[in-house]
């Protein structure tokens, strides 16, 4: 295949490795099936259909692919959780709810390369034995839903979807289901409830995986858009070859979405672990604005714990143990976890020294207070409580005990809820308060009482020229 050419001004950075985003911003490219097939599309589906389903699953296991939605759980292993003697229908759901603040990768796959997703889904359906698949797309992508529906129609006309796909025995249908603007629908059991036409209250675990009991109480596999696209490439190059991309245990490529105080924010597909935080911010994204210093980074979507510039982290064990700074952190799953945060969904939010962390945390808390589904008391009450505290800090009515209260509320949510939302809303508060106490104390000292300490937000925003 010839190397694609890209739209002027949107060329990938030289340290990128474009696989999933091969066709994003490509010159002369459109989302039609014609473009896709001319580029060798659906060849991998044909290849997969000649294999046994178990062989496809094995390839995915060999590849070491880890879910790109947030938890980083190995995709092949997840597929293996379908009970072996299962007699019920199996469902596959593509999670296109992309709602973690800071993340904007699936948007481009859905809008510019829908057939890649459909091909990946069909291969995955074949592997897990699903005859019906759903794409749960967030309501805020009305255009994306239309594009997907159009793409599904195109594929059906070419007998790539429906009954007896490509003349074989494999039948599969894909339906697009639109959400209605709730963050919690990104949680897989919440998503399933929503698909069943209910409020998206996450289900009580166990069973820990919907692969055992999911949609309509049948085995269900829920995968992120990006993960399903990777499946196509694993079949194309073989699991073993795929595993050579990236670093051991953190294989393949992943799309990092950078936003916040950098000169060139955007999406960058890189080999997992082959690029460091410093290279990403200073080289790929063009660094910070002139005269500004790095203050902190949220490395994996707003629920990931914040990293403070100047911190030191000890990673590795035994002989390979070493201490690194924030700029030397390789962007992979394991190291970010060792640094006390997570790679999450790949949404990197960069903050420079013009930002007031109380204001930042207040924004995050407002999000979680709005999006808590209200099922578990610690999260329902706690997220709102934390928001109220940071609200009053920002408005100049903070009191000295606020810091302690914030931490205590956060500590009492994490680990005490049905789903991971509890952790997601507590982690920002816990980490921001612990790592930037001076910013918070400014808002709680009696000397500043009644003063609205307006951060430089306005000036900072105005200075974000792109």
């Amino acid at each position: 295949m010839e190397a694609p050419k890209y739209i002027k001004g949107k060329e990938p950075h030289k340290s990128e490795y474009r696989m999933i985003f091969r066709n994003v911003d490509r010159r002369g490219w459109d989302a039609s099936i014609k473009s896709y097939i001319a580029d060798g599309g659906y060849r991998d589906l044909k290849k997969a259909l000649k294999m046994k389903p178990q062989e496809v699953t094995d390839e995915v296991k060999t590849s070491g692919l880890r879910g790109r939605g947030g938890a980083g759980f190995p995709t092949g292993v997840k597929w293996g959780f379908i009970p072996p003697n299962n007699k019920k229908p199996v469902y596959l759901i593509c999670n296109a709810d992309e709602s973690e603040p800071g993340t904007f990768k699936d948007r481009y796959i859905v809008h510019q390369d829908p057939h890649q997703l459909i091909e990946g889904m069909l291969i995955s359906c074949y592997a897990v034995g699903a005859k019906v698949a759903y794409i749960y797309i967030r309501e805020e992508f009305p255009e994306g839903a239309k594009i997907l529906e159009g793409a599904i129609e195109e594929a059906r006309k070419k007998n790539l979807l429906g009954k007896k796909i490509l003349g074989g025995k494999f039948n599969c249908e894909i339906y697009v289901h639109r959400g209605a603007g709730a963050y919690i629908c990104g949680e897989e059991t919440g998503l399933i409830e929503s698909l069943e036409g209910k409020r998206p209250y996450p289900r009580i675990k166990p069973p820990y995986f919907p692969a055992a009991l999911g949609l309509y109480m049948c085995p269900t596999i829920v995968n992120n858009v990006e993960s399903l696209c990777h499946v196509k490439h694993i079949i194309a190059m073989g699991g073993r070859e795929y595993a050579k991309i990236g670093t051991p245990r953190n294989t393949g490529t992943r799309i990092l979405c950078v936003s916040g105080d950098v000169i060139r924010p955007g999406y960058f597909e890189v080999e997992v672990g082959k690029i460091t935080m410093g290279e990403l911010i200073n080289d790929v994204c063009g660094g910070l604005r002139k005269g500004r210093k790095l203050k902190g980074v949220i490395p994996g979507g707003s629920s990931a714990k914040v990293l403070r510039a100047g911190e030191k982290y000890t990673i590795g064990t035994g002989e390979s143990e070493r201490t690194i700074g924030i700029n030397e952190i390789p962007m992979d799953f394991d190291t970010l976890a060792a640094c006390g945060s997570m790679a999450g969904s790949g949404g990197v939010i960069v903050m420079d020294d013009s930002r007031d962390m109380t204001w930042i945390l207040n924004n995050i808390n407002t999000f979680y207070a709005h999006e808590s589904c209200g099922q578990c008391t610690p999260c329902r009450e706690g997220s709102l409580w934390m928001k109220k505290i940071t609200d009053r800090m920002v408005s100049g009515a903070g009191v000295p005990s606020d810091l302690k209260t914030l931490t205590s509320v956060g500590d009492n949510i994490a680990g005490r809820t049905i789903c991971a939302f509890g952790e997601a809303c507590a982690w920002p508060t816990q980490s921001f308060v612990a790592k930037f106490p001076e910013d918070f104390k400014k808002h709680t000292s009696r000397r500043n009482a009644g003063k609205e300490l307006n951060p430089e937000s306005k000036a900072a925003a105005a200075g974000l020229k792109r």
Partner: protein
Amino acid sequence: MPLLHLLQQEYGHINEESVNWVAEKLDIEPINVLELVTFYPGFRQTAPGKYHIRVCRTLSCAMAGCYETMEKFCEVAGIDRSNVSHHNPIAVSEDGKFSIEFAECLASCGTGPVCLIGDEFHESVKADNVAEIIGKYD
């Protein structure tokens, strides 16, 4: 939910009549429909204007100045947001042409501030170019 989407597309919002109609069609209790309408922020309970604007409020867009964008939208379109609350997020202009609300993360954080007007998506909506965008809707 697909039914509710269709109704909202047709009427702009979902009222009691729509809720009862859906319940009857699906042979379920109206409360099972109402609980969805009240839960999902994507379903509107009050009538929006002819063009409904949703401005992203979440972190990356806020850092890029979405609050100023919101102020400007209200100023240009003549919308008063002083009565907005959690249960009543939508404010409508006096002439009924525009309505506005804050939305949580529209997933385009690299090009903030962003907003949706109806089904159309707009990127890098700084306060300076609000008037121009509003001008395109008549």
